[in-house]
């Protein structure tokens, strides 16, 4: 399953990094604690968070994540969008709360790790 498959079936908006939509999604991770994500998310994961700081792009880049979903209607900061674009990180937003997004991801076949 690619990031694009997920974007097409879930209420997600592509905010930046559209060039990476073809990336394969290996699984999912959800946490708002960045140090936890760095330690536990696996490469190729799609990450659900409410953080909008540019640090999420750095974490996604370090961990080799397929995409980041900023959930709960949180708005990524301007620097975050610019960094995601320049670093080639797929940045998605949704009004759905994290729990609902993760539920939908599971239903569409994305499992933990």
């Amino acid at each position: 399953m690619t990031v694009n498959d997920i974007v097409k079936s879930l209420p997600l908006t592509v905010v930046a990094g559209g060039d990476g939509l073809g990336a394969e999604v290996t699984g999912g991770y959800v946490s708002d604690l960045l140090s936890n994500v760095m330690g536990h998310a696996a490469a190729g994961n799609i990450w659900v968070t409410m953080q909008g700081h540019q640090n999420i792009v750095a974490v996604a880049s370090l961990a080799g994540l397929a995409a980041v979903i900023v959930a709960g209607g949180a708005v990524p900061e301007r620097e975050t969008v610019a960094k995601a674009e320049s670093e080639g990180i797929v940045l998605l937003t949704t009004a759905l709360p994290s729990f609902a997004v993760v539920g939908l991801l599971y239903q569409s076949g994305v499992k933990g790790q």
Partner: protein
Amino acid sequence: MRELALHILDLVQNSLEAGASHVLLAIIEDSSADTLTIRVSDNGRGMDDATRRRVLDPFVTTRKTRRVGLGLPLIDMSTRQCGGYLRIDSKVGEGTEVEAVYRHSHLDRPPLGDLVATVKTLIVANPELDFVYRHEVDGTAFTVATGELTSILGEMPLTHPDVLAWLGEYLAAEEVKLYGGAKHEND
């Protein structure tokens, strides 16, 4: 980060990497202003204005092994999430002062964490460093300075197991006194 103590370790590490021989760590809790301030001042090599403005960018780092540095960017994020801010003052050749301010009562503010273990770790790992730790709660404060300890200890090194055991007990007792004998938020 789960605890502010981890940010403190990061900040002092930055000072050491900037070649500091003197580091002052101050933690100031002020209930009337509802602030918790972590201030680290050093006499390291300092930064020019252009560098200072770039250090909050996670894709800027002095590290050569990878191109992402999250120490200061993570502190910047955590302060802003808690109604606070991060301030950095620096002068080339003189040193740097970093001040992280949190709204004390903010629900998302991480706990301070184990300050006793953190201060002990910093002292043991850097026995040559002139390190001053000051913790102030609503005007009451205590200070530990490695320079003073060294002069009292004479020949005995700061890293001697007996000294460390004493230091741990002393710090723990002083921390308890600061909170008026009340239990610390981490206990």
